[in-house]
């Protein structure tokens, strides 16, 4: 008995992007088709096919296997092909080339609440949605109470769902899908909805599905934290191709930080704004441009920007994110002592020192912004710079997994409480 749950071989999918030629918003009408028919016939006779459409490859030659019981994450920027891949695995759309072999029943949760009908009650929708997701009536009946309890909608079961709050709606939808019993579960971005508490509950349920029930899960998300948490292995898609595959933390790190060390100095293309960045760079204490720092080393962040006119309250700020995309801290120039004003028109060169013994070893990125707080954003450069912190600060930090250490290095002083305090 093989332990492969899913095998994908040289999978490709293309879409034809029709060039707009009249008609209402992209839909072809019969009239349009009939009008271009003579031209097509003539072209065919002349053996020159006039290209009225362009082929776009959403997936290019993808191959990988997923083992039974494995949780595989799929990440990538928008348009990388993640959702297309899931749609093919779920048979919503057909591949153009290649093959997929699936060993086991597939269940999918591609979007919460797709099978709901607003006029029907919660009870009726549980049956409808369950059946759409592939459950039999008996199966749904068996799990009905569990679903209702999970969704916390007992007293609204006989109310049409169109009167539900969006939170209730999402809870009910997730509850139905989460109680599916497939051997292979495909999940797309479902955790991005609902309030924080419910998201936590969903994540716990998912963890349960993966860890305790031993099901195979393929999980697409932009939530890097959830990916690292749930998945052992991860695939990074870039423009329809597998860019990287491996340990989840590594792949997520590569996605967020760029695979190689980025250049520590960046010249920005000017944008149309009254205040815009020109340059940013990272330097070590020796004054050398660098993208790798030892853990106890301070970082010098330099930035240059131009302000076109007097802007009252203009601030320069930056935030540092870890490889999962969690923000570690934020700082703005209004915190400077003594104060530095960047309100007047002109060009500025500003430096900020990020102290050593603050960041844990790992990959980080910096986002820069010029803004007047809560009113206007003049320029923002997301993940403008990225860097690595290498080595450990002291030996006692060795041997811990990245997850266990938290987010920052804390220079905690320990003593026996009966000893006289040296600090306080």
């Amino acid at each position, binding site marked *: 008995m093989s332990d492969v749950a899913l095998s994908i071989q040289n999978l490709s999918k293309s879409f034809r992007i029709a060039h707009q030629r009249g008609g209402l918003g992209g839909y072809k*009408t019969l009239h349009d088709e009939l009008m271009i028919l003579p031209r097509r016939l003539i072209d065919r006779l002349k053996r020159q096919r006039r290209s009225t459409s362009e082929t776009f490859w959403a997936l290019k030659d993808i191959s990988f296997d997923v083992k039974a019981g494995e949780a595989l994450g799929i990440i990538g920027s928008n348009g990388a092909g993640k959702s297309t891949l899931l749609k093919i695995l779920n048979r*919503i759309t057909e591949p153009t080339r290649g093959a997929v072999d699936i060993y086991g029943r597939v269940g999918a949760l591609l979007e919460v609440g797709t099978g709901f009908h607003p*006029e*029907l009650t919660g009870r009726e929708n549980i049956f409808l949605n369950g059946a759409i997701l592939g459950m039999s*009536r008996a199966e749904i009946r068996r799990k009905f109470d569990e679903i209702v309890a999970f969704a916390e909608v007992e007293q609204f079961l006989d109310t049409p769902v169109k009167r539900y709050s969006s939170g209730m709606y999402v809870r009910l939808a997730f509850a139905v899908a989460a109680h599916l019993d497939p051997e292979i579960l495909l999940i797309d971005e479902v955790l991005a909805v609902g309030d924080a508490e419910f998201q936590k509950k969903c994540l716990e349920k998912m963890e349960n599905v993966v860890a305790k029930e031993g099901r195979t899960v393929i999980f697409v998300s932009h939530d890097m934290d959830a990916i690292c948490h749930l998945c052992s292995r991860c695939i990074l898609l870039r423009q329809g191709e597998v860019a990287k595959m491996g340990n989840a933390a590594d792949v997520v790190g590569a996605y967020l930080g760029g695979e190689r060390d980025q250049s520590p100095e960046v010249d920005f293309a000017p944008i149309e704004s009254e205040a815009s960045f020109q340059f940013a760079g990272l330097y070590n204490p020796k004054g050398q441009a660098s993208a790798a720092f030892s853990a106890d080393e301070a970082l010098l962040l330099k930035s240059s920007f131009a302000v076109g006119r007097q802007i009252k309250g203009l601030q320069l700020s930056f935030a540092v994110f870890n490889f999962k995309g969690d923000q570690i801290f934020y700082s703005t120039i209004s915190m400077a002592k003594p104060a530095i004003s960047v309100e007047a028109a002109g060009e500025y060169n500003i430096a900020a020192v990020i102290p050593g013994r603050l960041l844990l070893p790992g990959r980080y990125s910096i986002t820069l912004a010029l803004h007047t707080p809560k009113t206007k954003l003049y320029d923002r450069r997301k993940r403008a710079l990225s860097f690595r912190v290498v080595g450990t600060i002291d030996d006692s930090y060795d041997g811990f997994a990245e997850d266990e250490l938290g987010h920052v290095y804390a220079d905690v002083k320990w003593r026996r409480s009966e000893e006289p305090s040296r600090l306080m």
Partner: protein
Amino acid sequence: MRSVVTQAPAAKPTLRIRPTKGWAALNLRELWSYRDLLWILVERNIKVIYKQTALGMTWVALQPLIAAIILAVISGVVAKLPSDGVPHLLFVFCGLTAWNYFSQTAQRSSNSLVNNAQLVSKVYFPRMLIPLSHTFSALVDFAVMLLMLFIFMAVYGVPPTLRLAAIPGFLFLTAMTATGVALWFSALSVKYRDCNYALPFFLQIWMYASPIIYPTSMVSTKWQPLFALNPVVGFVEGFRWSVLGRSALNPPIFWVTVAMSVFALLSGAFFFRRVERDFADII
């Protein structure tokens, strides 16, 4: 690539996904395995249609009744068309019972895929279930009309006969044709939204080309063979024969109807299967 070299799966895959080309098999087994979903969709169709209307299910009875009265007045009083010696209202209502089932199935299912675009582009299930569910849910309207028809029969003193037992047979034929038309139109309207606008006219012309407000006997014998190609002729006549016993059921017409019904259903189903693979991409 490394991942491809991993051990060859020993077990047979539960599902193989390959690009398909040309005509596809109907895959009736899969359709059958999704029968629970079909019933739930049918239930949904029925529940949703008359929700939040003051008269609710009364509309099911009211709509055809009003339509029948209007048509009976036009054909009997204004146009003075013959009705094979049967009271006009009864004659028209009888034809309308068969016709309404046909047209309602076709009409409701024609834009059903587009209305359920959310489902089609997000979840997998045999797409045929969506138009098919209307074939079944329209049976509710048919049952109500049939009940009213029996009341009319009692009022006009038409005795029921054993011929009534043939109604399910004619109904089955109607359902086949209606489903065929529904499959064609629902599949076409995914790509060409025009179909939704064209269908009502198409059905209206079809209705007047069928013996709903006039008897087949009005059509000259020269044109009868052509007339019989319209499958609606066969089942409207068959239906009248079961209820009123007046229309001489012409065996050739009947067999043409059977052939046309089978043709409509099969061509619709195969066409649907051929184009359904693109639904999610273009809907």
